[in-house]
């Protein structure tokens, strides 16, 4: 009988938000077409580490399993990405897994991405359409514009761009590329454009657009291929014009 092929996972674990991290190695039986999540499921099925000691099952976050929800992001062999699309056959062995350190760790590989959702609220990443009466259909959007705006709408708030960014860390309050790209998305919408100035003002402050240092790791790392650096440069341009208008005056204000 041929010996069963195994894959090795070296996982940075943490039992609670405040406890110290530690490393634990696992060996799981190899199957064809495995991804990191199916390997983690093997660990969960049989929570015994490589030394043969029984341990707690490794905890991680996941939801859609097809790279559209953003929940299963973690650091895999040094780079942040989704564990659902990280195929074991394409990864260097042993596979090293760690939680995204930019975010508060809840347990093991699961992190709390609340700061990203707070940023989305801060930049008003929605389009107000409610009125006390029927406001009608609103202005039309050019198809050419809709096409590139759709690319920006693929953002799933997964946190990979924040993790990759050298300016998003505990010493800085930069909100990161994701929310700033959403400012561009909602400002590009003909109805959303009516609140353009408010959204721009929301990133012209602490942790806003000027926190960007143009290291451009975000665009290299984004799993959805969103042109984040183009969005950042667009917001750089729009905020420069917005400051000019708000200081020297424009038709938009008394």
């Amino acid at each position, binding site marked *: 009988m041929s010996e069963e092929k195994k894959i090795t996972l070296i996982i940075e674990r943490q039992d609670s938000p405040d406890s110290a991290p530690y490393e634990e190695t696992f060996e799981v039986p190899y199957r064809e077409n495995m991804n990191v999540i199916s390997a983690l499921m093997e660990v969960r099925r049989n929570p015994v580490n490589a030394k043969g000691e029984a341990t707690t099952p490794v905890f991680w976050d996941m939801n859609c399993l097809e790279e559209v929800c953003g929940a299963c992001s973690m650091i895999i062999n*040094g780079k942040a990405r989704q564990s659902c699309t990280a195929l074991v056959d394409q990864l260097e062995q042993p596979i090293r897994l760690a939680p995204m350190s930019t975010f508060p760790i809840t347990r093991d590989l699961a992190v709390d991405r609340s700061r990203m959702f707070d940023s989305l609220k801060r930049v008003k990443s929605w389009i107000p359409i409610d009125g006390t009466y029927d406001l009608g259909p609103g202005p039309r959007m050019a198809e050419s514009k809709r096409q590139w705006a759709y690319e920006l709408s693929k953002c799933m708030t997964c946190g990979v761009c924040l993790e990759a960014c*050298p300016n998003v860390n505990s*010493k800085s309050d930069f909100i990161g590329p994701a929310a700033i790209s959403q400012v561009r998305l909602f400002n590009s919408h003909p109805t959303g454009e009516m609140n353009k100035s408010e959204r721009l003002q929301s990133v012209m402050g602490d942790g806003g657009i000027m926190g960007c*240092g*143009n290291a451009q790791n975000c665009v290299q790392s984004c799993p959805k291929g969103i042109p984040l650096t183009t969005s950042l*440069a667009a917001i750089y*341009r729009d905020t420069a014009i917005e400051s000019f208008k708000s200081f020297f005056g424009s038709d938009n204000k008394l």
Partner: protein
Amino acid sequence: MAGNRDYINRRIHSLLGVLPIGIFLIQHLTVNFFATRGPEAFNAAAHFMESLPYRYVLELFIIFLPILFHGIYGVYIAFTAKHNVSNYGYFRNWMFMLQRYTGVITLIFIAWHVWETRIAIGLGWVDLNYQLMENILTNPFFFWFYVVGVVSTTFHFANGLWSFFVSWGITMTPRSQRIMTYASIIVFLAVSYVGVRTLFTFAYGV
């Protein structure tokens, strides 16, 4: 509101790096380049700069205050970054890190350079002429200190010019940013040549 204080400081920091500091850097290195035409040419050029009208106003508002603001605020910016080139070894990430390292090196270099030349001249310890720089640069340690300082300054300027074009919304597309990268490399090589060539003249008379 035109953005809060943090936003405005960042904008001023970005603007000052090119206007006036970048312009001053090119002017300064160009005037120094007269040294390659001999000590008399350098002395004449230096004397012309020294005898500009309302010189202290020019020095204060074009050189000292902008550099102090850009330098001090820049150190704060440099220390808020957490470098990660080992995991994300992309070209722009390296440039991001080098921009912060060269900024700190340049600040140290400029502080020493201003002390040794402008302040020493102002206090009457030395005179502004070719011999002043020759005496400094014939010392091998200071020659290499100046080479590192000048190259670090020109790198910081050329790469800073690249980010200036992004920060003010001029280069938005990846293509325009890539072409600006090539342009900034040419600026770096050209301005470095002017600076380092002058150092060789002072040090070795060639």
